[in-house]
């Protein structure tokens, strides 16, 4: 049993956990911004009529969704140096998370845009609006409402996925737990503590998703 559970060691390592938590938060936030950028571009390509932009976007989204993040991470980690890009692990990690989540974000935004009834678009065409006006004034404001809860769900997934970066030795939260586990042979203290920190982040984001659902008058997020 865990009769030797040492809270003292946890307190001793608290600064390390704190740093890990902060790193996890900001690298997830940065990756989420990256994912939004990737997702918007992919979605715009995917909604084109011509195949020239659509096919590559669809292929990319399918390829990302059908392979594990860990394999994608190793692909970049071991592959980029071969192309002449020697980047720090942290940058590779953020890149991998952005490119991975971007594919899911693209699908979320697309679902949001397609959820706008056809009549709305037709009415704005009839009112003589240009494509940009139609998007900006009619489609996007309504789509925004529908996309926020699932986007927050994706943010939760992203924070959890960021734990995999510990496997390419990025000094984030999970890495801090691993360090405690291997330095002091205290896996229980290390991993239970980081699990608690991840739960904290999870409940914060989940609360935010519920609140946003209430403000926007849509159903709560599904994670």
């Amino acid at each position, binding site marked *: *049993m*865990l009769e030797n559970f040492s809270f003292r060691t946890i307190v001793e390592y608290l600064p390390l956990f704190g740093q890990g938590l902060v790193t996890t938060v900001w690298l997830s936030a940065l990756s989420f911004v990256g994912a939004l950028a990737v997702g918007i571009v992919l979605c715009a390509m995917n909604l084109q009529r011509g195949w020239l932009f659509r096919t590559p976007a669809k292929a990319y989204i399918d390829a990302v969704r059908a392979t594990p993040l860990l394999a994608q991470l190793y692909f970049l*980690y071991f592959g*980029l140096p071969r192309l002449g890009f020697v980047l720090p692990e942290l940058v590779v990690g953020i890149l991998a998370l952005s490119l991975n989540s971007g594919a899911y974000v693209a699908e979320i935004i697309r679902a949001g845009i*397609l959820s706008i009834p056809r009549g709305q678009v037709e009415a704005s065409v009839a009112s003589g609006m240009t494509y940009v006006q139609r998007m900006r004034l009619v489609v996007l404001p309504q789509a925004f409402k529908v996309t926020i809860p699932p986007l927050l769900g994706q943010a939760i997934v992203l924070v959890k996925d960021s*734990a995999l970066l510990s496997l390419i030795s990025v000094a984030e939260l999970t890495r801090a737990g691993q360090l405690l586990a291997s330095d002091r042979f205290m896996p229980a203290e290390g991993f239970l503590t980081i699990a608690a920190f*991840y739960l904290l982040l*999870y409940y914060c984001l989940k609360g935010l998703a519920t609140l946003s659902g209430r403000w926007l008058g849509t159903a709560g997020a599904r994670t």
Partner: protein
Amino acid sequence: MIWQQFISLAGSYPLALRGIGMTVVLSLISLVLGTLLGFGLGILRTGGNRLIASVIGAWVDLIRGTPFLVQIFLIFFILPEFGIELDAFTAGIIALTNLAACFICEIVAAGIRSVPTGQVEAALASGLSRWQRMRQVVLPQAMRIVLPPLVGQYVLLIKDSSVVSAIGLTDLTRVGWLVVQRVPNGLLVFFLVGVGYFIVCYPLIMLARRLERRMGAAHGEVQL
């Protein structure tokens, strides 16, 4: 140069086969166990007993709120402290089954809740037992809602099985990691690893999409 790498890669095919075998076995066992357990939990979650339902809800939340990597470490390193000796394979199966069961539980519960109460009341009025009600009235109707996300969940499970490489199981991803130490071409090696997963996952993704369309149509929803 690239030719030599191909020869060298071809030489490591026994390792690759072992990795594919491991990924398939891990996914398959935890898929079956996770589905059974998930359906059981999902039925209990909507079964009317508040205490059981909230205990299951809390557990599902714990599992959904923590990274899978951390769950694997917890199971692999901490269960032995409770006197349960585990090898990496068993730990991997337990972690994957638990994860699948929790997500499937939520999917099944959502499906059951979607069945109109009138159906259950009619079944009650016809004198069907609890078990008959579930098996003959509720579950068949719930399956329409359950099936598409269930298939999607299987894709997630196969992908998540790659994370067990962190506790030293030689699955497909781990094989890629081992091979790349000898053949220093990460692009090629992990492209091939990706192809391996893609061959299994992509048809499943297509199936999920198809099911979603068909089930949507069965519901009489208008496709835009």
